[in-house]
């Protein structure tokens, strides 16, 4: 079971007093302390873990966020930021003795600036709402996580979220221009703006993907892109995962970077087709969706080349979208993969490792063996272009031992990803879920270095503690490692 930071019983017994204090900093209705109401916040998208917070606070603006953080800092209360609660790694899992800071009320689009091709938004704005707001002018915000209707842009920044189009257009971090951030002590800082590149150290770069451990994002300036004039998608079916994988490699080797390149294995296709009726071929062992965008002539040309490659690699069927509506139907299936799998199994556990693509056949074979061994089925969706795997492990939480087996199966998959040269998480974050696996990828020194960076932002480690790092070490202790590192066996300066 997961160990979380030692609980501060004092905070728990002072709940009512703390709630009363907070109610002086924000609108009283924005402080939630009733156990029944707190249940709404007890988990995020990683529903296997549940823990109601001490109190939930819903500030309405940056000043209120700063006031709440200043108060919590002074009172040494832990704080867990939360956007829309769709994290799949438990990043927004509350703490029994911690204040849950919900950013949902900061939900306004503050400015759209076409001349500078950017939008300034509050963190609670849902990802897709940005694209909707600028659609009439032909613009959009590129990163498109499948959860984009619900997930907040602040959560996207905290997780450095990706999406099916990030192969060509990048992750969140590649699409940000500026942030306003409140540090744990309540200080407000602004990074970037409508211009490019950090002035000095790229703190925006490390805040992005920091999973709510370094600061609370209260404003985001995102890059807007012009929608390409044409986009078409190809569905290509293959008789084996290997063949599909080879087609992916060959497309990239041919110098083509598709707007999106997704793969699904047979169990995933079956689940999705049953749910969405996207017209996916049910007899395929592997299905590829390749989207190409650009001018009409360019898309036609590239589509021809991609079809040729797919055919050479043994595609058993090929279908090109003939209309925008059909293209969206092709994607609707892929984007609904998680809920679709949710229909065929009482529960599923979504993994998120990245591997060098050439290792795909090996990883899928080993995963099939594990599936046998653990007695749990697995369906695979895969951001094939960038090697980001999403194995969905099917289990039933009501069956004793099933969750535990699913978690062990998941850990083995992720360790395998690292073993073949990949990483533990491609886009969902470490959170609590992969926290204890961090040592399989990083040495103690690597992790201590990261923790010292955390200490630079939050020396008391009050902001989202218990996430990302397997062991909580006090900042003073990490500093002491410095000192012992100072006693060194090299009295003379080397000369060579």
């Amino acid at each position, binding site marked *: 079971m997961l160990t979380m930071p030692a609980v501060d019983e004092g905070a728990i017994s002072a709940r009512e007093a703390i709630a009363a204090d907070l109610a002086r900093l924000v609108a009283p209705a924005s402080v939630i302390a009733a156990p029944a109401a707190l249940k709404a916040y007890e988990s995020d998208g990683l529903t296997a873990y549940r823990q109601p917070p001490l109190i939930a606070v819903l500030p309405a603006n940056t000043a209120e966020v700063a006031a709440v953080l200043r108060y919590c800092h002074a009172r040494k209360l832990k704080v867990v930021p939360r956007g829309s609660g769709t994290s799949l790694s438990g990043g927004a899992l509350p703490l029994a003795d911690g204040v849950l800071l919900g950013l949902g009320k900061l939900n306004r689009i503050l400015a759209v600036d076409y*001349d*500078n*091709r950017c939008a300034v938004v509050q963190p609670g704005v849902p990802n897709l709402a940005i694209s909707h707001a600028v659609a009439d002018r032909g613009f959009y915000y590129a990163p498109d996580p499948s959860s984009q209707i619900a997930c907040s842009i602040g959560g996207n920044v905290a*997780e450095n979220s990706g999406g099916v189009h990030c192969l060509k257009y*990048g*992750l969140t*971090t*590649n699409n940000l221009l500026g942030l306003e951030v409140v540090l744990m002590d309540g200080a407000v*800082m602004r990074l970037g*703006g*409508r*211009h*490019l*590149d950090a*002035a000095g*150290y*790229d*703190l*925006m*770069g*490390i805040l*992005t*993907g920091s999973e709510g451990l*370094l600061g609370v994002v209260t404003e985001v300036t995102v890059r807007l892109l012009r929608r390409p004039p044409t986009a078409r998608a190809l569905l290509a079916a293959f008789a084996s995962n290997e063949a599909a994988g080879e087609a992916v490699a060959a497309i*990239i*080797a041919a*110098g*083509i970077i598709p707007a999106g390149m997704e793969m699904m294995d047979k169990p995933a296709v079956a689940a999705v087709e049953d749910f969405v009726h996207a017209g996916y071929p049910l007899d395929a062992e592997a299905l590829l969706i390749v989207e190409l965008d650009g*001018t009409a*002539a*360019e898309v036609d*040309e*590239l589509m021809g080349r991609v079809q040729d490659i797919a055919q050479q690699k043994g595609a058993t069927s090929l279908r090109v979208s003939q209309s925008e509506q059909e293209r969206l139907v092709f994607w609707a299936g892929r984007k609904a993969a998680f809920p679709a799998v949710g229909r065929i199994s009482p529960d599923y556990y979504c993994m998120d490792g*990245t591997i060098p*693509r*050439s290792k795909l056949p090996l990883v899928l074979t080993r995963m099939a063996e594990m599936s046998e061994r653990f007695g749990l089925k697995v369906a695979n969706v895969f*951001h094939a272009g*960038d*090697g980001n795997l999403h194995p969905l492990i099917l289990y039933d939480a009501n069956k004793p031992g099933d969750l535990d087996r699913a978690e062990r199966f998941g850990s083995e998959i992720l360790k395998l990803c690292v073993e073949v*040269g990949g*990483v533990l998480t491609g886009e*969902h*974050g*470490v959170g609590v879920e992969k926290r204890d696996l*961090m040592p399989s990828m990083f*040495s103690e020194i*690597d992790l201590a*270095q*990261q923790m*010292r*960076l955390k*200490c*630079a932002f939050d020396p008391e480690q009050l902001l989202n503690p218990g996430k990302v790092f397997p062991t909580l070490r006090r900042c003073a202790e990490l*500093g002491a490692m410095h000192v012992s590192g100072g006693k*060194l066996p*090299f009295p003379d*300066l*080397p*000369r*060579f």
Partner: protein
Amino acid sequence: MQRLQPESISEVVQTVRAHAEARRPLAIEGSGGKSGLGRPVDAETTLSLRGLSGITSYQPDELVLTAWSGTPMREIWEALAEKRQHLAFEPAAGMLFGSGNEAGTIGGVLASNLSGPRRPSAGAARDHFLGFSAVNGLGEEFKAGGKVVKNVTGYDLPKLLAGSMGTLAIMTEVTVKVLPAPEKQRTVIVPVPDVVTGHRCLITQLQEAFEIDGAAFLPAAVAARSGVDLVRAPGSALAAMRLTGSPVSVADRCAALRAALGMATEELHSARSQALWSEINEVGSLLPAETDAFWRLSVPPASGARIADELGEGEAWMMDWGGGRLWIARRDASAEDATRLRQALSAIGGHATLVRGPESLRRAIDAFPMEAPPALLQRVKASLDPHGILNPGRMYRSW
């Protein structure tokens, strides 16, 4: 002065440990080509990464390349060209920084976060920097990031090291994202009467779906210094817009862009187009040679022309990134002028970096801009280099 050129990571570790213990500063360099960028470092010992050189792994269809940090850029460019790939952030060879023909090392390019005209569409060096091994200021070897194109495991330390000018850690091995190089390029040039017209033309067309991946404005005197005949020919200021991609796509977009412009335009094909963008990327040959201080400004693109006007630059400047980057050649190399220049930006947003100047000026000011609270930045610095021995003073006077 002594120069150390370690041949292995353990030699780097030993050197740094010894210096950390003795609290002696180290100047860190790749090939030293960018030593004019930033403030002078007062250190008796220079540690050069040149001895750690070579590509360790290059997998074109995985889109990643791993190399020792001291690998010369020329070697990287050659390896990529052979597979028709490139670094999409288009790092300059760096002549502006006074390095002659030396294009520097991959570690130096990343440490200074250099990127070229494609930066607005393709990202900066930091956007293509996937992972590293490094030695921190205590002589501890550590790694962060990964060797795959998509990774969010742990803090994104490559972003922090990109642009940190060797003040946080010494990178030993780096992994970068590589991409297919565009097959073709063309540039549409538009002679314009003044900067406002030229700038407006860039701002307008960048909002269309032409996928412009280079957008510059050259004042008449700057265009006159170009080695490209068609750029000199109009004898006026001009806006230049580059289109790259597959031949069909480039031809299409070029025709559409010219039609949309609805004014007299000229088209540069492959070699000329390449030559022009190389000049724009390298800057040096286009701006007056007798300059005392070269500045790079990053500003909201729509404000480019206004800032140039406010600074009263005459013609000793040019604009890239659709107005978002200004290169300015100042005759005045005083600290007061630097303050003036930075103050002009405060109302508009953006920042200014001194990229070349006399040592007196480089000593007198913070060569790099600073946006976060200094106390936080110093804690960040101390988390990697607690004794402050790595390139002290290179970016800022105070650390």
